[in-house]
C-alpha cells in the first residue's frame, strides 16, 4: 500500500502510523511524547501533520496510515502549529537551558532551536509544585515538566512498576507517585526508566550538578556487571569516571535497567578499592610490588603442590569475571594438575546443571528472555524475579498485560504474586510434592502430550508409576496448597499452547535441589512444553557471568564447553591445546574444598565465601587453617582479609572481555575507565601468574583468549569479537557461519531422548522443632547484590536499604512479642545474629526470611550446610531457627 508524504510516494504495511511510515522513509517528524513499544497517546501534539481532506491537523504518532493519503509534514500551517505548541511549552515552566541538567540532551531545547522559537511569548506562571529532592537517585522538578506522559508509560507499560500516574487536572495536572507522595514513599523501585525517557529536565539525577552533563560525556557500550539478565548499558564517561549509566535502547533490554545497574556502578570509584598488591608480613597485610606478590603466590602454590600433590590446591573462580578470565583461571588450575576448580554456581544453580543435564543433556536455560512474549502460560517458582532479575521481571509483567496467564508458586508473597492469575503458596521445601501433584492431575485428566512423550522421551512408565500417590488431597497435606488450586494450575499449564517455566534459587537451594529440577523438567516434557517458542524450562542465572563461568569449565567435573574431564577424547583435545597433562579425575566442589582439610592452599578470584557460604563460622575456621590463601578481588572482602597474598583486580568497567547472560548470550564488556592505582585486569594477572608457574606467556588480549576458547569449547566455536561487536551471540554456536541457537531442543535433546526421572518428596534436612520452631529461608533484595561487596559501597542503595532485617509474619511476631522495627536475635544450631524485625504478611506463619547480603549480620551464620547429594549445594532455603526479642 502507498501514500505520499511531501510529494514522495511511500510504501507501508497496514497498522503503521503516519509517523512510522515517515520514519521508515527518512522523513523527519518531531516527537516529544512518543515512546517506542507503547501505545501512542498523542499528548504533546508536536508531531502534527497536514493530511489532505482532514478538517484539522493530525497527530501523526496516533494516526494510522491509509491508502492514497496525501501528507505534508512541513507546510506553513504545520510549522505555525508546532511553533505555537513550543511557545506554550517553553512558557509553561522554568525552561532555562543555562541552568538545566538536561541541556544538550533535551528534546524541547533541540526543537526550540530547530524551529527558531524562544521563551517569553506568554506570561510564565509561578511554579505550582516544589521540586522533590529527598531521595538519593532522582530529582523531580515539576516546573520543567511538559506532561508528555512518557514517564507514566515507562513506569506502567514498560517496567510495569505502576508507581506514577497523572494526578489532578487542567493547569494543576501533575505526575503523582502514590497518593502524591515522595517517590521513596510510593511503590517506586528507582529503576530510573522514567529518568531515561524524560525528554526534558523534569527528571534528573540527584547529583546532576556535581558531574558533567550527558552531552559532555562519551558513551562506552558494555554489559551490566550485576545480574544474569546482562542488560546492555552505555557507560557515559568523562575525565576517567563514569558520570551516567543509560540502558542501551538497541540492546536486548531495550533501554531498561534496574536501580543497581543505573545508579550503583559508583562502587568502581569507591576509595576502598584495592590499589596495590598486599602480602601478609608479621600477621599484617601490607602493600607490596606486583613482582613480590606474584613471586610469593606462584612460589608457594608450586611448593605446596610439589609437597602434597595437586589435590592439595583448591581454585575458586568467579561468576563476576569475564569468560576469558574464567577460562584462563580453570586452565591454570588444570595445568597445575588438579580439577579442584569451582565457583559460586555451586551455591546457586549446580542442581540445574546436574538436573537438566540428566533430563535433557544440557544444563542451561532453553529459551531467551524475549521469548516470554510467546508464552500463553508462565509458571514462576522459587524466583523473586522483580527483585533479583528486575528487567526480566518487566518482560514477564508485560506478557501478563498482553494476556498471558501467570502462575506463581512461592512461599513468600513475592512481587509477581500481585500480577498472578494464580498464586500457590507451598510450605518451604515441599516443591517436589506439588510438582508431582501437577503431573498427577495432568495424567489423571489425560492432559499430557502423548505424541511428544512417545517421540521425544524415555522413562515415562516409571514416572507415571511414581506419581500415583500424589493426589491433590495428599499434596495439600504435604504442601498446604489447596487441592482445587493445584488442579486449576495443572489445567492452565497443560492446556496452554505454549507454556514456560521460570525458576531460581527457591528450587535449587535445597538438599533435594537436583531432584526438584528434574521434576520441573519432567513436567515440561509431559506436556511437550519444551523446544518451541514460548515453551521451555528456564533457570534464571543469578550473576552477570555465572552462565559463562560454567561454560568455561570453572567446574570440577567438566572442561570448557561441558566436556567431561573423564572423557579421554575431550581431555586429549584440551591437553593438545594447553600443552600439559590433565587429570581425568573429577575435582572437589567449592563446598567440599572448604569442608576437607586435604586442601592446603586456595586461590580465590572474585568470590567471598566468608559471606556467601552456608555456616560461615565453619568456613572461617577452615580458611584460617589453610597453609596459603591467595585472593584476587576489587575490594578487601571478608575473605581477602584472611589471605596471605591479595591481588588488586579490575572491575567490569575497567576491562575488556565477554559475559554470557542467562539467555546463553555472549556479550561484550568494554573498558570505560582506567583501573585505580596499580590494579590490573584479572586476565593480565592470571597471565603473569601462569608465566611465573612456567606455563609460558598467555593470550595477549581478551580477544585472543576468546579465539582460544572457540577452539577449546565447541559450543563457543563460532564466537568471535568481530561478530559480537554490536549484538551478542547465543550459544551453541559451533562455527563462524552459525547464527547461534536462541531456543534449545527444537528437534532433539543433546542426550537424544529426554529422560523422565521419577523423584520422591523429601522434607528439608532440618525441620522446625520445639527449640527452633521457625523455618528460615534466605534470599536477596532488589537494592543489594550477593555479598554486598559492590552494592554496600553504593551510597544511594545504602540510604534506601542500610541494614539487614528479618521478615516475620504478624501472628508469629505477636506471639513472640515482637513489634515492627524492633531488634531481635535469630539463632540456629550453628550461630546467632541480631537484626531488625520487619513484620509483614509477605512471609507465611512459621516462616522467616533474611537477606544474605550483610556481612555484619550474615544470614549464613545460621544456614545449614546439608548438601544435595549430586550437586553439592547447601540448603540455604530451609533451616530451623528461633527468634527472641532483644
Amino acid at each position, binding site marked *: 500500500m502507498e501514500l505520499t508524504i511531501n510529494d514522495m510516494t511511500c510504501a507501508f504495511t497496514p497498522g503503521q502510523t503516519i509517523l512510522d511510515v515517515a520514519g521508515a522513509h527518512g522523513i523527519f517528524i518531531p516527537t516529544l511524547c512518543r515512546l517506542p513499544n507503547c501505545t501512542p497517546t498523542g499528548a504533546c501534539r508536536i508531531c502534527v501533520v497536514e493530511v489532505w481532506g482532514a478538517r484539522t491537523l493530525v497527530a501523526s504518532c496516533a494516526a494510522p496510515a491509509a491508502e492514497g493519503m496525501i501528507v505534508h509534514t512541513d507546510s506553513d500551517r504545520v510549522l505555525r502549529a508546532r511553533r505555537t505548541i513550543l511557545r506554550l511549552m517553553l512558557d509553561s515552566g522554568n525552561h532555562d537551558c543555562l541552568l538545566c541538567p538536561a541541556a544538550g540532551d533535551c528534546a524541547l531545547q533541540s526543537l526550540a532551536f530547530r524551529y527558531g522559537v524562544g521563551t517569553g511569548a506568554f506570561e510564565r506562571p509561578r511554579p505550582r509544585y516544589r521540586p522533590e529532592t529527598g531521595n538519593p537517585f532522582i530529582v523531580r522538578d515539576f516546573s520543567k515538566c511538559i506532561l508528555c506522559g512518557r514517564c507514566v508509560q515507562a513506569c506502567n507499560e514498560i517496567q510495569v512498576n505502576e508507581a506514577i*500516574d497523572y494526578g489532578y487536572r487542567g493547569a494543576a495536572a501533575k505526575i503523582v507517585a502514590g*497518593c502524591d*507522595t515522595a517517590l521513596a514513599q*510510593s511503590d517506586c523501585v528507582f529503576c530510573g526508566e522514567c529518568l531515561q525517557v524524560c525528554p526534558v529536565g523534569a527528571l534528573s539525577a540527584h547529583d546532576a550538578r556535581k558531574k558533567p552533563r550527558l552531552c559532555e560525556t562519551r558513551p562506552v557500550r558494555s554489559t551490566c556487571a550485576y545480574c544474569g539478565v546482562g542488560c546492555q548499558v552505555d557507560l557515559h564517561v568523562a575525565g576517567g569516571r563514569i558520570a551516567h549509566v543509560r540502558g542501551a535502547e538497541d540492546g536486548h533490554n531495550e533501554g531498561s535497567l534496574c536501580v543497581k545497574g543505573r545508579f550503583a556502578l559508583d562502587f568502581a570509584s569507591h576509595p576502598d578499592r584495592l590499589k596495590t598488591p598486599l602480602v601478609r608480613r608479621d600477621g599484617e597485610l601490607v602493600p607490596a610490588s606486583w613482582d613480590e606478590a606474584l613471586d610469593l603466590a606462584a612460589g608457594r602454590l608450586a611448593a605446596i603442590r610439589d609437597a602434597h600433590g595437586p589435590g592439595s590446591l583448591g581454585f575458586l573462580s568467579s561468576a563476576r569475571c569475564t569468560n576469558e578470565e574464567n577460562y584462563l583461571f580453570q586452565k591454570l588450575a588444570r595445568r597445575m594438575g588438579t580439577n579442584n576448580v569451582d565457583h559460586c554456581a555451586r551455591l546457586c544453580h549446580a542442581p540445574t546443571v546436574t538436573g537438566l543435564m540428566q533430563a535433557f543433556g544440557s544444563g542451561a536455560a532453553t529459551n531467551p528472555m524475549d521469548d516470554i512474549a510467546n508464552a500463553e502460560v508462565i509458571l514462576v517458582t522459587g524466583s523473586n524475579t522483580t527483585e533479583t532479575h528486575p528487567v526480566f521481571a518487566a518482560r514477564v509483567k508485560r506478557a501478563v498485560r498482553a494476556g498471558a496467564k501467570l502462575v506463581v508458586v512461592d512461599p513468600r508473597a513475592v512481587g509477581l504474586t500481585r500480577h498472578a492469575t494464580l498464586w500457590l503458596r507451598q510450605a518451604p521445601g515441599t516443591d517436589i510434592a506439588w510438582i508431582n501433584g501437577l503431573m498427577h492431575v495432568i495424567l489423571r485428566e489425560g492432559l499430557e502430550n502423548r505424541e511428544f512423550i512417545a517421540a521425544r522421551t524415555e522413562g515415562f512408565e516409571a514416572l507415571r508409576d511414581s506419581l500415583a500417590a500424589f493426589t491433590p488431597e495428599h499434596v495439600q497435606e504435604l504442601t498446604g496448597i489447596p487441592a482445587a488450586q493445584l488442579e486449576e494450575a495443572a489445567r492452565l499449564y497443560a492446556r496452554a499452547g505454549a507454556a514456560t517455566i521460570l525458576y531460581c534459587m527457591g528450587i535449587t537451594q535445597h538438599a533435594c535441589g537436583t531432584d526438584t529440577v528434574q521434576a520441573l523438567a519432567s513436567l515440561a516434557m509431559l506436556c511437550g512444553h519444551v523446544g518451541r517458542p514460548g515453551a521451555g524450562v528456564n533457570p534464571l542465572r543469578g550473576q552477570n557471568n555465572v552462565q559463562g563461568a560454567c561454560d568455561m569449565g570453572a567446574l570440577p567435573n567438566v572442561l570448557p564447553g561441558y566436556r567431561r574431564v573423564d572423557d579421554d577424547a575431550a581431555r586429549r583435545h584440551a591437553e593438545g591445546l594447553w600443552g600439559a597433562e590433565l587429570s581425568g579425575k573429577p575435582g572437589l566442589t567449592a563446598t567440599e574444598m572448604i569442608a576437607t582439610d586435604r586442601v592446603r592452599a586456595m586461590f580465590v578470584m572474585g568470590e567471598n565465601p566468608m559471606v556467601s557460604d552456608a555456616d560461615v563460622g565453619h568456613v572461617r575456621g577452615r580458611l584460617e587453617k589453610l597453609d596459603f590463601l591467595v585472593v584476587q578481588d576489587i575490594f578487601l572482602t571478608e575473605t581477602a582479609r584472611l589471605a596471605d597474598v591479595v591481588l588488586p583486580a579490575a572491575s567490569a568497567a575497567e576491562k575488556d572481555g565477554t559475559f554470557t547472560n542467562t539467555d546463553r548470550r555472549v556479550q561484550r564488556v568494554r573498558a570505560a575507565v582506567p583501573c585505580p592505582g596499580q590494579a590490573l585486569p584479572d586476565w593480565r594477572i592470571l597471565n603473569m601468574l601462569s608465566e611465573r608457574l612456567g606455563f609460558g606467556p598467555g593470550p595477549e588480549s581478551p580477544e585472543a583468549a576468546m579465539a582460544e576458547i572457540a577452539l577449546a569449547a565447541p559450543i563457543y566455536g563460532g564466537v568471535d569479537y568481530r561478530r559480537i561487536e554490536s549484538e551478542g551471540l547465543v550459544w551453541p554456536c559451533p562455527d563462524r557461519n552459525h547464527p547461534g541457537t536462541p531456543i534449545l531442543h527444537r528437534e532433539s535433546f543433546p542426550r537424544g531422548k529426554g529422560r523422565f526421572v521419577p523423584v520422591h518428596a523429601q522434607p528439608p534436612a532440618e525441620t522446625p522443632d520445639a527449640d527452633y520452631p521457625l523455618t528460615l529461608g534466605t534470599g536477596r533484595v532488589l537494592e543489594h547484590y550477593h555479598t554486598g561487596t559492590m552494592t554496600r559501597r553504593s551510597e544511594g542503595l545504602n540510604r534506601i536499604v542500610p541494614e539487614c532485617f528479618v521478615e516475620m509474619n504478624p501472628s508469629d511476631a505477636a506471639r513472640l512479642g515482637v513489634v515492627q522495627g524492633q531488634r531481635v536475635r535469630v539463632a540456629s544450631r550453628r550461630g546467632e545474629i541480631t537484626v531488625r524485625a520487619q513484620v509483614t504478611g509477605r512471609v507465611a506463619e512459621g516462616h522467616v526470611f533474611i537477606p544474605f547480603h550483610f556481612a555484619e549480620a550474615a544470614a549464613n551464620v545460621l544456614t545449614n550446610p546439608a548438601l544435595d547429594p549430586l550437586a553439592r549445594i547447601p540448603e540455604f532455603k530451609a533451616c530451623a531457627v528461633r527468634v527472641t526479642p532483644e
Partner: protein
Amino acid sequence: MAPLNALTPDQLAQADAVVAEHRGTPGSLITVLRLCQDIAGYFPPELVERIARGMNLPVAKVYGVVSFYSLFSLEPKGRHQIRVCTGTACYVRGVREVLDRVERRFGVKAGGTCGSGRFSLEPVRCLGACGLAPVMVVDRDVHGGVTPDSACEILEGYE
C-alpha cells in the same frame, strides 16, 4: 468523636466490603470510589491505598482518578455539605450575599470546612433549578428562593 481525619474501624470494614464486592469487575473503580466517599466522607491517603491494594490497582492510578474528579474530595468534610449554586440565575437573584452571610455566620470559607466540623461549603455551577433561584442544597435537601436570613435559619436545623 474520632478525630476528623482518622477513619473508624467500622468505616474501614464497610469500605473493605465495597471493595470485595467489586474486585475483579472491570471499570468499577468510580462506583467503588463513590460508595467509599459516602462511607468515609473523603479520601485520606490510607483509604486510597486500601482501595488500590484491595482492587489490585496501582495506588497512583486510584489517586489520579480521585484527584481528577471534583466529585471526590481529598479533604475531610463537615457533617453536612452545603452546595450553593453560583450559576447566572442564582447570581442575579443575590446568591453572593447568601454565601457571604453563611460564611460569616458559621465561620466557614467557600470550598472549606468550619472548625467545628459541622458544615462544608461549596459553591457550585448551575444546578439546573433556575426557577428556584437562588438555590442552596444541604446534603440531599434542596432549598429554593433562599435569602441571607432564611439560609442561616435553615442551616440552624442541621446539627
